[in-house]
């Protein structure tokens, strides 16, 4: 982990209330998709944790949804503004888990880190299947980006306005897979858990430090207490207590 000053290179609205922002700076320490960064915002005491969508040594791109005052302030940042960021944080996804038919399942704003994962998998020679669920058509993001990787994502919407009407689990029933990588709201993770033979699950928690110091985010696993920020945010199916 380092504290970096990152500079906004560009930011734009992907869908109403959903922004994509590229931040320039030393990002050479990022080691795996699924890691996150923790952003200090003027006027807010706690940093805001946001997953890495894509990255290279000199930049990191994030996708975030405005849900409160902090993300609202973040969305108002302009090109050239700088942020004090702690990064990289968390363990990230482990691609080395041998699997012949991996499936990536993302829900809403949980989709972006899976794109980084898919990119890494494709580079490593495996083309994963992807299911992504949204509430409605107006929230769908990254379809074209996945296609550019050679993946046709299966889309579900709760209101049926696009793709399959229903939840990601409705789409999963028709697919074959032996390992699942997933990120999204906790009820979705739980539902995916029930259908996944094995896999990696990305969790969220309210965090104070984000780097393992405060025990603000600890949950119990089969292998003991784990800090979602430091020992996670990715937990393995076998350790999750559900």
């Amino acid at each position, binding site marked *: *982990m380092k*504290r970096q000053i990152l500079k906004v290179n560009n930011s734009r609205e992907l869908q109403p209330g959903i922004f994509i922002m590229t931040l320039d700076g030393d990002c050479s320490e990022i080691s795996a998709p699924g890691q996150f960064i923790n952003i*200090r915002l003027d006027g*807010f*005491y*706690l*940093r805001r944790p946001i997953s890495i969508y894509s990255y290279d040594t000199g930049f990191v791109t994030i996708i975030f949804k405005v849900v409160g005052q902090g993300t609202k302030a973040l969305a108002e940042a302009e090109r050239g503004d700088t942020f004090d960021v*702690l990064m990289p944080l968390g363990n990230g996804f482990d691609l080395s888990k041998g699997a012949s038919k991996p499936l990536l399942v993302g829900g809403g704003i949980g989709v972006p880190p899976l794109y980084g994962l898919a990119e890494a998998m494709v580079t490593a020679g495996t083309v994963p299947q992807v299911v992504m669920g949204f509430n409605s058509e107006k929230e769908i993001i990254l379809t074209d980006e996945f296609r550019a990787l050679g993946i046709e994502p299966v889309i579900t919407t709760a209101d049926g306005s696009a793709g399959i009407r229903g939840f990601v689990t409705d789409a999963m029933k028709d697919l074959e897979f032996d390992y699942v990588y997933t990120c999204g709201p906790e009820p979705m993770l739980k539902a995916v858990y029930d259908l996944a033979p094995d896999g990696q699950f990305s969790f969220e*928690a*309210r*965090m*104070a*430090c984000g*780097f*393992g*110091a*405060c*025990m*603000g*985010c*600890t*949950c*119990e696993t089969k292998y003991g*207490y784990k800090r979602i920020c*430091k020992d996670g945010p990715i937990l393995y199916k076998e350790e999750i207590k559900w």
Partner: protein
Amino acid sequence: MVDLKVTLSGITLDNPVIPASGTFGYGKEFAELYDLDILGSISFKGTTRDARLGNPLPRIAECPCGLINSVGLQNPGLDAVCEKELPELGKLYHKPLIANISGFSPDEYAACAAAMDKQAQVGIIEVNVSCPNVHNGGMAYGVLPESAAEITRTVKAVTSKPVYIKLSPNVTDIVSIAKACEEAGADGISLINTLLGMRIDINRRKPVIANKMGGFSGPAIFPVAVRMVYQVANAVSIPIIGMGGVSSARDVIEMMMAGATAVQVGAANLVNPFACKEIIEQLPCVCEELGIEKLADIIGIVK
């Protein structure tokens, strides 16, 4: 050269800056960022007799100029702390530590203190009396002079190391409690622990924190902490470790002028992991600006 040294019950610290219990774990995460030996001391995560997972999530709520935590004393328990955490911390930090202990009964306090007494690395035992007394109505030991004094005596009986009682600010009369601890034999007073606070998630119409209320700390509580340090310093003759919202070298100096011999930094470590390092680096420069040659000279200088 500004002299930053201060002395707590015979233990001389290179500087008064100490990470506060619960905001620095056992130092590991910070040792990746800077050399821990620059620190005056370290008050490590509060130890209880048995391992504790702590409270359910969410445990953290943001506040204006601070945060609420309800970690609930998560720690691996006395044995694991002594056998695993302290040896590991010993490799990262080579000066006397402050062992923060907690308990839900006098016995538990005694067990923790007795074990910490045997740890060569531990210089001071800091007794957190903000825990609820589970055998007696759940009121915290620290809110009544009598029960705070009782815990002081209990701990003093089992250790020859200096004992600092860490007081809760959620009281009508902090001075009477500090005095009771002094009379019961405390070697020093640490204050303040967190203020009891609460936030509500107005979208979900629920408390943000699963446990509803929690401990509020950060810059927001600094004026309350300065006030209590000042009040207690003027009432007792044992040294005080001041804390509560300290985030800068100037804050350290303000706490010391109010009466603190050393100063702990809590929440600031969480939002800026370099907080203690930066404070220590800035202290000489701020002292020079203020005409302070020897930091120990300003302790309690404000009357």
